[in-house]
């Protein structure tokens, strides 16, 4: 197991290097000049050039990449071109809102989607199954921002129960923290619920046709224990896999949700950075997302051994 973990962690290094090089190349090729944006509309080309030199943007590609990589390997992701703050500080400021949003989304999604999928599988072909699948299609089809505006209109504007926008750190109290996050998390959950519910249903249908389920029922076990104790555990490997893969979906959704609900998270940080061509910030955030994605998938691989004792590394 330890060897497997070490091997997987080591194998992420070339992946990270490739991602870093790929992102750096894309940014280098992309048009746009942060110096022009800093200088403002009135600036002459001479003034813009002077800022470019100061920021080191006039350096060739390889010098900038090697310099950035050298610092990144030491844990220094560079300095934001605009704010002049370290990228690690900027990411640190934005991490709590995004992690909170994603965690709450996962909790809501799993709590709703798994029972929905189990119910649909247990009632295959009946109206419950069709209703669950209709909800799943709706979740897949309606864009996150539409759901977001709709929720905001109902619960924040019409019913005046929750705030429209913003984020309150957990340190300032759980109630305001939750009040700010609940609507965005529900909006972001829609597509995730659809995804998990569908895979749960499929996986459960497969498991429910197995002999040992028939045996369990023959021994007199009720529907609840059969579904949630015997079947669900064995159906959970693909479900957990989809939850892990869906994190990428969440990252993309968080960018939109954070914009609609004005949450100062990492998603908005990277969008702003792209619009301004703040290269160090873009590189830092993409690298962070990549590391997170690789580690989540590693964690899921390890979880397989818990869920299915037959799996060995």
């Amino acid at each position, binding site marked *: 197991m330890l060897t497997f973990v070490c091997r997987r962690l080591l194998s992420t290094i070339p992946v990270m290097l490739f991602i870093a090089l790929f992102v750096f190349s894309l940014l280098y090729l992309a048009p746009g000049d942060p110096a022009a944006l800093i200088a*403002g509309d009135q600036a002459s080309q001479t003034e813009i050039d002077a800022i470019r030199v100061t920021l080191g943007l006039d350096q060739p590609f390889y010098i900038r990449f090697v310099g950035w990589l050298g610092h990144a390997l030491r844990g220094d992701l560079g300095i934001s071109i605009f704010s002049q703050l370290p990228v690690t500080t900027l990411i640190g*400021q934005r991490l709590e809102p995004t992690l909170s949003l994603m965690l709450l989304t996962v909790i809501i999604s799993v709590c709703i989607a798994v029972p929905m999928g189990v119910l649909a599988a247990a009632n295959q072909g009946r109206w419950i199954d069709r209703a669950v699948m209709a909800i799943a299609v709706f979740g897949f089809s309606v864009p996150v921002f539409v759901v977001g505006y709709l929720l905001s209109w109902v619960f924040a504007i019409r019913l005046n129960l929750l705030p429209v926008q913003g984020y309150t750190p957990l340190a300032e109290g759980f109630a305001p923290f939750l009040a700010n996050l609940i609507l965005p998390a529900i909006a972001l959950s829609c597509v995730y619920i659809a995804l998990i519910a569908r895979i749960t249903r499929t996986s459960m249908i497969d498991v429910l046709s197995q002999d040992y389920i028939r045996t369990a029922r023959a021994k007199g076990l009720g529907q609840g224990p059969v579904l949630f104790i015997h079947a669900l555990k064995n159906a959970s490997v693909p479900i957990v896999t989809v939850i892990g893969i869906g994190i990428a979906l969440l990252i993309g959704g968080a960018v939109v949700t954070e914009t609609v609900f004005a949450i100062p998270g990492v998603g908005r940080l990277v969008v702003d950075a792209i619009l301004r061509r703040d290269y160090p910030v873009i590189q830092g955030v993409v690298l962070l997302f990549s590391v997170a994605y690789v580690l989540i998938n590693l964690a899921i691989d390890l979880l397989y051994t818990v869920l299915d004792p037959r799996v060995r590394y």
Partner: protein
Amino acid sequence: MKLHLLVASFLAASVAFAGAASAESILRIKPSGDVKALDPMLGSDSMARNYGYMVYDTLFALDADLKIQPQMVEKWATSSDGKIYTFTLRDGLKFSDGAPITAKDVISSLKRWSVNDSLGQQMMTNGATFVEVDNRTFTLSLSKPWGLVLDALGKAGAPVPFIMPARVADATPPTTPVTDYTGSGPFMFLAKEWVPGAKLAFVRNPNYTPRAEPASGLAGGKTAKMDRVEWVIIPDQQTALDALGKGEIDINEDLSADLIPLAKETKGVTVAKQDDIGVAQQIRLNTIKPPFNNVKIREALLYAVNGDDFLAAVISDPSLGKACKSFYTCSSPYHTEAGFPSPDLETAKKMVAESGYDGTPAVLLDATENANIHAFVTVADQLLQEIGIKTKVEAMDWATVTSRRASKEPVDAGGWSIFISGPGGLDFLEPVGHLGLRSNCEKAWFGWPCDADIEAMRASFADLTNLDERKALAEKIQLRALQTVPYIPIATQYQIRTYRNDLSGLLTPPAPVYWNVERK
């Protein structure tokens, strides 16, 4: 029952939280953009300028009638030959860290500012030298009289000559943002609470001494009546309007035109113009490459463009924009419509036909994320086609426009023909600081118009002190510009501010400021 109790406690906790937060008087504002770099002297970014007015003070400032008034200066005198200015600072001025503001700080700040500002550069070209006389007094000596000294020191267009400590101004090159935010203005910036792209917070500067006069424009008594001001960056306009309606924010600086009807129906909210100067919407032409290197085609555009048609594409309320036919903004004292042709599409078509146009397509840079620019580009595209000019619209974001417009290549090699922009009207008030009329070839704004006559007249404008003489020269410059056509003015468009009805004391200067504001 348990669920009911849980919801009730949750809401009670939320209300308690809101109550606790309101003990301090807080003004929450959604600014018109985000501050890219916290240094108002670095360039002409208007958000950095707005930040500057919170944190720094100026020697002179424009009042509500756009007249220059002393601000940090107590008194000043000019030598009989007009070459030496002596300034004395008000007594007791302090920086936000409590240190006294001295002549040395002022001189260092002005030197740093002058590197990036066109008026500052002209002042230095006129041999400006600063000498510290004592802690509160300094002189500015020029090699020849220059009539724009006070206009330069009191200018409100970015970069503004704000005063910062000498230790900061001397140690930070004018191309590098400052990292020490010690200021001279009515508010202090809270660097520890800064979340770039999300939130900026300010508190009242206890060391600031306002002038005794009432606040007027950017001048007069800058009394911070709120304990704390927060700039909350809300990227989505609909969310910002909803937040304003619910009282989560107090002011939205720049409402999108399509939301104005909705804002007017929102309870407890006032919709008003941000100021009377607005932005100078214009079609900027690349005058050095085909097709617009042909002055006849540029002239044809003067006949083709009808500002009202462009405004109709973005606003339904005619009071929010004005198609005044002038190179100077509608509110400028030099505004004149002399020589400007009335829109006439047939004449424009005829002029293009007679111009020898070779069929080179006009490349329009379309910053699609900006609804206003995108609408204007669409109208311009149709108009150009109607008068017989081939077009090619290239969609991109504003950041790409800002780098692409620097290209001097032909249109088939990555160049451009037209971009549409709306710089602040402050930069279009008079000929010297005029961004669009500059015709000094490669040093001019993108498009690089080149005309020695305009440059000579702009330079001599600075030597005049009489308003009537200045007006006459401004008109002459316009008449010449109608022959060279450096760009096509579209209209003055006003920024729309929405705010909660319980606020009072809001000022309407050309830069949004938040001293003097209080809750009724």
